[in-house]
């Protein structure tokens, strides 16, 4: 446990984005931004998944970004609008195709957070994030299978911008994978607790945990994938991931294009019972109001 925690800490300090890039390259054979006017932080590729072409997107660190507060892999203004642009491009290209032929959109997720910067706030970062969220969700509602594959970090505004509107979410079962609303140090400061207290609470309270296995208990994930080498996946691991993504695409196409599965899954029926009860009561009272 101690060792795996250590790996998690290392991933937090120095390796963010490396996993994203490694998996993007492994799954698409490409590792570049689409065009010169796309920031180097947004990787885009059209690549085969199974027997169809899919759009793959990934946000990686760009140490040379003109915006200082995104250089470690945060999602900022350029990233939000570029993601939105690329997703809408696919949406428009497939708009006259039947639902079964709309291309899958695969978000490979390893994002630190949103950018914590004054430039970003001044120019309305919330709208860039909203535009990207809107594009992913619009693609999903139009019938594109949108699959999110979390291979590293998926934090707060970063995940809302890139990945959280997917029909199905896959994640690596690994100590270096963290899905959370805020990183430990900041959450501890804001809630006036020590990091140790926060970790202890996470063991008792699954929604507060930083462990991806606890996250899986919430019922929001489609599948956890175990691999031995998440930083440098070998061929069989890449093939396994590819099969899991293909299965998720098939499953997404069979279901409704909304996010209902996240509250109806067996795990969610248990972990989200209070929210589900509030929803059921709202449905009942709405009819009579």
């Amino acid at each position, binding site marked *: 446990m101690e060792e795996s925690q250590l790996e998690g800490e290392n991933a937090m300090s120095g390796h963010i984005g490396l996993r994203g890039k490694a998996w993007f390259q492994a799954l698409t054979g490409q590792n570049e931004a689409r065009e010169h*006017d796309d920031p180097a932080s947004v990787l885009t590729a059209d690549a085969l998944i199974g027997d169809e072409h899919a759009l793959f997107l990934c946000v990686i660190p760009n140490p040379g970004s*003109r*915006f200082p507060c995104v250089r470690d892999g945060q999602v900022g*203004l*350029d990233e939000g*609008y570029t993601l*939105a*642009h690329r997703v809408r491009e696919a949406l428009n290209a497939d708009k006259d195709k039947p639902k079964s032929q709309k291309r899958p959109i695969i978000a490979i997720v390893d994002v630190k957070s*949103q950018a*914590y*910067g*004054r*430039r*970003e*706030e*001044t*120019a*309305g*970062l*919330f*709208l*860039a*994030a*909203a*535009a990207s*969220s*809107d594009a992913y*969700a*619009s693609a999903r*509602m139009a019938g594109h299978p949108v699959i999110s594959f979390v291979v590293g970090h998926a934090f*707060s*505004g970063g995940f*809302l911008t890139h990945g*959280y*509107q997917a029909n199905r979410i896959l994640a690596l079962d690994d100590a270096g994978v963290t*899905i*959370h*609303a805020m990183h430990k140090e*900041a959450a501890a400061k*804001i*809630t006036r607790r020590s990091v140790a207290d926060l970790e202890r609470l996470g063991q008792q*309270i*699954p*929604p*507060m945990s930083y462990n991806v296995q606890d*996250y899986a208990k919430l019922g929001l994930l489609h599948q956890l994938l175990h691999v031995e080498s998440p930083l440098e996946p070998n061929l069989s691991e890449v093939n396994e991931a590819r099969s899991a993504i293909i299965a998720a695409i098939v499953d997404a196409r069979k279901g409704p294009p*909304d*996010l209902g599965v996240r*509250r109806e899954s067996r795990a969610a029926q248990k972990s*989200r*019972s*209070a*929210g589900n009860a*509030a*929803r059921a*009561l*709202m*449905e009942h*009272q*709405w009819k009579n109001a």
Partner: protein
Amino acid sequence: MIETNAIPAFVNRGSFIELNGRERAQALFDKGSWRELVGPFDRMVSPWLPMQGVAPEFDDGCIVIKGKISGKPAVAISLEGAFQGGSIGEVSGAKMVAALDLATIDSRDGKPTAAILLLETGGVRLQEANLGLAAIAEVIASILELRQHAPVITVIAGTVGCFGGMALAAGVSSYVVMTREARLGLNGPEVIEQESGKDEFDASDRALIWSIHGGEQRAGMGLADDLVEDSVDGIASAVQQFVRAGKPAQHRSEQVELYRRRIATLDASSQIDPLALREQWKSLNSKGRTQ
């Protein structure tokens, strides 16, 4: 001698900001037309707060009222800024999502039902962390569904402001109404100062905060649709106007190319002067309208 008729108008104007979340929602509806759903008597409380020694509230800080505005079906969802900073937890989030989804179902069935979101919130409730973040993703998804059929109107009156993931909810809304006292942004000043340092953002500099996040700035830039005075009548009439207007031809968060171009031309080599940016975008907006 003080003359009695010298009382300034704002003294007699009913303040909207001084109302609590429930009173704010009630104030928007046609008289006698509304009813609160899943209210405090239903005692739908957060299961996670008591486990951490925090007293829950019977409405979980989210008030849902259904009724009529200007004679049209509408639902108001109001976040109580005085309870846990208006934060989104499992139950408050589920109430919000359910109300939006039910408005979508009614709208699809031929009864367009507008939603009014009264947002005073810092975003995710950290005591419910991942269920709060998941709820926000679902709120965004449900707004995007509903706005295809009926307008979703976000009102940020003050004084908490609208921050964190819920700023994306404002971002995907059909219309945003703000007062001068209101603020809108992804990261609040304290969070930026904590994460990037005081040089990046001095959270004690109130003039700086309002110059960036304030309602006058957001409306001036075209990131909010209406700037209204803090009065019950003023805010209610702005909401009525947008309910009657119905959904816009294009939503702001769909205008990707417009904003992508604007961001591409930003000079990021130093901090951006908020007022200069406002003037620049304002002139672009007025040109855009004539195109």
